[in-house]
């Protein structure tokens, strides 16, 4: 299912109940630590920020239906509303009708653009850069510099006769090289025979999310060709991982020719198999932010993959949900294997996690919304009493750090202590910590 037309029947399941606007819409009695974080809570970043029904998934489903029925024409205004969504999938967790809300939103964006509406300014820039064969990344960096971060271990580049590749992704390759460094270092420490492929190109995630599918298909096909002979691809970027794992099979119509695993999951696998043990302590209070792409989206995909094979959902839905929940536990198992680490969970977690605000093309195009969303999540993180906000996604890391910077500026300007809003939190990428401890 890739086009909006193919999703017509799924979209038609929406009865506009608006349960999707709430985190924990099915858990009214969920206990929280504070009055603010208890029971059901609003959970849609765009809806909270803009207020109008059309920014919530519930409204978007009905705009999509009107578009499908020829009642609502494609327009720039329509695209702007459709694009103002982080595609975090919180809504998808809530839907008792199993509507693939993120698929509908992404397909709606694509359909509007394919009707002749120009993509939004920032999204167009991404697309053009990724489409440029001399770049193949959204950051306007030279393609030949993609592996420049790997100054020390050049032998890892295009290493022959290895079956495991680390897909670095554009952000770690060009902007947050420390994440690439830490990931490569972890793999070396674990004694993994792996390579970094110089021909890798952007996974296409930002292009796909923002509805620019033609260019996405080009880079997807290039990557599939480049990596086809590997057995396993490892990822440090939640977005790249989700794109390969969930979107490539759907858009190519073929199962992946290799296995995929996020580096945190890979560490989990080794812990689970008893092949490694973390001995060094990390004596800090930590709260964990679930990246939407690698946690919620993959969890939901696991659930729906099981249901797709089932001829009795009544019996199998519970097992499918359990498999999803088991996926949500993976990062927690890794964190709890670290001696001394005091995990203080936020209220909205796992499938009901509140987004950092950066995804779906929002960070670039709707920076105010991204910042506001980041601050809401930082406040929730601060409410746990943790000192460290840990996650494993370069976009979450960036957006949280931007939120903290903004809070610090506010503190400087007003003299008001905003530590209860998260101004004193330190954002740590879990892979960085694992590199330190392994």
């Amino acid at each position, binding site marked *: 299912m890739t086009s909006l037309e193919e999703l017509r029947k799924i979209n038609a*399941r929406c009865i506009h109940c608006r349960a999707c606007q709430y985190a924990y819409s099915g858990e009214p009695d969920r206990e929280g630590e504070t*009055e603010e974080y208890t029971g059901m809570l609003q959970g849609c970043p765009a809806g909270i920020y803009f*207020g109008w029904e059309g920014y919530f998934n519930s*409204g978007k489903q009905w705009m999509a239906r009107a578009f499908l029925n020829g009642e609502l024409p494609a*327009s720039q*205004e329509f695209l702007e509303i459709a694009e103002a969504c982080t595609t975090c999938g919180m809504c998808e967790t809530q839907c008792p009708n199993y509507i693939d809300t993120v698929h509908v939103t992404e397909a709606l964006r694509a359909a509007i653009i394919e009707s002749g509406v120009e993509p939004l300014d920032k999204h167009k820039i991404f697309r053009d850069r990724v489409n440029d064969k001399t770049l193949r990344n959204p950051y306007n960096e030279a393609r030949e510099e993609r592996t420049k971060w790997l100054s020390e271990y050049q032998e890892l580049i295009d290493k022959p006769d290895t079956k495991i590749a680390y897909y670095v992704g554009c952000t770690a390759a060009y902007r947050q090289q420390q994440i690439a460094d830490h990931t490569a270092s972890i793999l070396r420490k674990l004694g993994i025979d792996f390579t970094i492929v110089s021909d890798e190109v952007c996974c296409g995630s930002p292009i796909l999310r923002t509805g620019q599918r033609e260019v996405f298909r080009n880079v997807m096909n290039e990557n599939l060709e480049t990596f086809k002979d590997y057995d396993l691809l490892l990822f440090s970027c939640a977005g790249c991982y989700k794109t390969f794992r969930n979107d490539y099979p759907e858009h190519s119509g073929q199962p992946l020719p290799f296995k995929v695993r996020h580096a945190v999951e890979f560490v989990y696998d080794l812990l689970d198999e008893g092949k490694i043990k973390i001995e060094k302590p990390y004596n800090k209070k930590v709260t964990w932010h679930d990246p939407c792409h690698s946690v919620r989206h993959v969890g939901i995909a696991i659930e729906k993959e099981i249901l797709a094979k089932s001829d009795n*959902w009544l019996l199998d839905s519970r097992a499918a949900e359990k498999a999803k929940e088991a996926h949500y536990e993976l990062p927690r198992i890794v964190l709890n294997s670290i001696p001394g680490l005091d995990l203080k969970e936020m209220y909205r977690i796992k499938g009901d996690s509140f987004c950092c605000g950066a995804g779906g093309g929002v960070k670039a195009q709707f920076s105010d919304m991204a910042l506001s969303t980041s601050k809401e999540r930082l406040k929730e993180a601060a409410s746990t009493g943790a000192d460290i906000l840990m996650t494993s996604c370069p976009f979450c890391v960036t957006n949280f750090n931007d939120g903290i910077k903004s809070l610090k500026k506010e503190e400087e300007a007003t003299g008001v202590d905003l530590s209860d809003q998260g101004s004193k939190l330190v954002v740590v990428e879990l892979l960085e910590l694992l590199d330190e401890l392994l």
Partner: protein
Amino acid sequence: MVEYNKVNDELVKKLVAICGEKYVTTSEPLRHSYMARGIMGMEAELPEVIVRPENAEQVSKILIAANDNLSPVTPAAGGLSGGFALPAIQPGGIYMDMTRMDKMTVDTENRVMVVEPGVKSGDAWRIFKTKYPDWAPPIPDGAPPAATVLGDAIERGFSLVTGVYGPQADMIMGLEVVLPTGEIFHTGSWALPGAKPFYRWGVGPNPDGLFLGSQGSMGIITKCAIKMIPHPHYKTVVAYGGDTWDDIVRPAWEISKHEMGIAENTVMVQGGNYELVMTRWPEKNVPTDYDFYKKIGIDRKWMNYEVWAWSQEELDFALNGIDKIYKDYEVREKRTLPQQTLHPKQIASRLKKPNKIAVPYSLWQAGFLFITWYCPWLESSAMMEEYCAAMSDHGFPETMWVASIDHARQAIVMPILCFDSTEPGIMDRIREFNLETTRSFLKKGWINYRPDPFVHAPETFSQAKEYYKMLVKFRKVLDPNLILHPGRLAIPWDSVSDLPDPSKE
């Protein structure tokens, strides 16, 4: 024929002056985002402008501006089980999204809470859970978290304790109403400035009934004072099965008659058939033969009893009382009505409020509609028999739900019409089904709960002519230009029906 004017630039400017630019939009996509066709009604027209007022004064000014331009106004916040109250006829006019008005005050001493239209069940439950755990907020049972407290109450929807106290509207102690012409007034004791909403009948004849169930067509209710009930924490659900509708309806009547006895603990009595379970799943991904449901312990028909008590002893007393009535009934009527073995998770799921229990019927195909009827409790078996036969004839699964209101004085009978909303001609098929059952039921003296403008209301008022004439008279006094939610309650008549206008006979 009433001629309404389209919303023009001048009117939009007035709305912006009243509410601020941020809260008025004519955006075509955003207007479409409020649409809903399903669950509580299939009829919906696109509004021309959306406005989000902050208080009753702004509501009043909007109505004055709408009257000046002769533009229709549809107020809505969320209410009921889902979907919105939408314009029924063209032009769609002004859609008043009341969700910004979301204040709530709680008076535990006088056991009344006051809500504005935007207070959602999920939020009310959360606030009560943390601040007032010994009280139950008057939220609808079986509605999702975004359903509003006020919307449910003024449309006479279910409460958590409808089996005992009747519909939510019976719990109302006072209203703040903005009349279609812009005047703001209070009902009950609230009419006296400074008085609390402690006495529903207030300072004179109470006009609440004109507004409750009017689907927003008599005035806009901007505040509602509702009784709060205690929230005892010894709770459970028991269920008994049977093969026929009478097997579940008659014992429930015997239990519910025990007023001032075990019936007071039995706050909700509701049941259904196995199709109610089956159609929550995709038609192609669930067994459709009853044998499967039998194997997993689901009877053909069953009735649930939700029991609240102040102690385990009191809870056991009520449960034993229910069981004894069933046992006696089985012997006397020579029936087998087994108590179902409920898994603790099933009990917890049923006790959960608010919940999403009513939502997944779209999975069967792609869309569903609740059609709700009231009848005297003991007549509900006959209604369900007829409904199921009609559903089968029209090619719909026989999904049926029934619940007691006020100690089984009345029944709400609700077929859930599961269909594929993308199927060409489906709306005509639903309309045919609705017309056929409506005509038959009206002859039997049964009434529709929330009449839709194109089938139920015209068919009903064609029978209840004198009532309709009075309704139109009241309406014209309150709303001389008929701007509020036109089409609802079949006013103006010729906008929704080709039948002879009863008010002219």
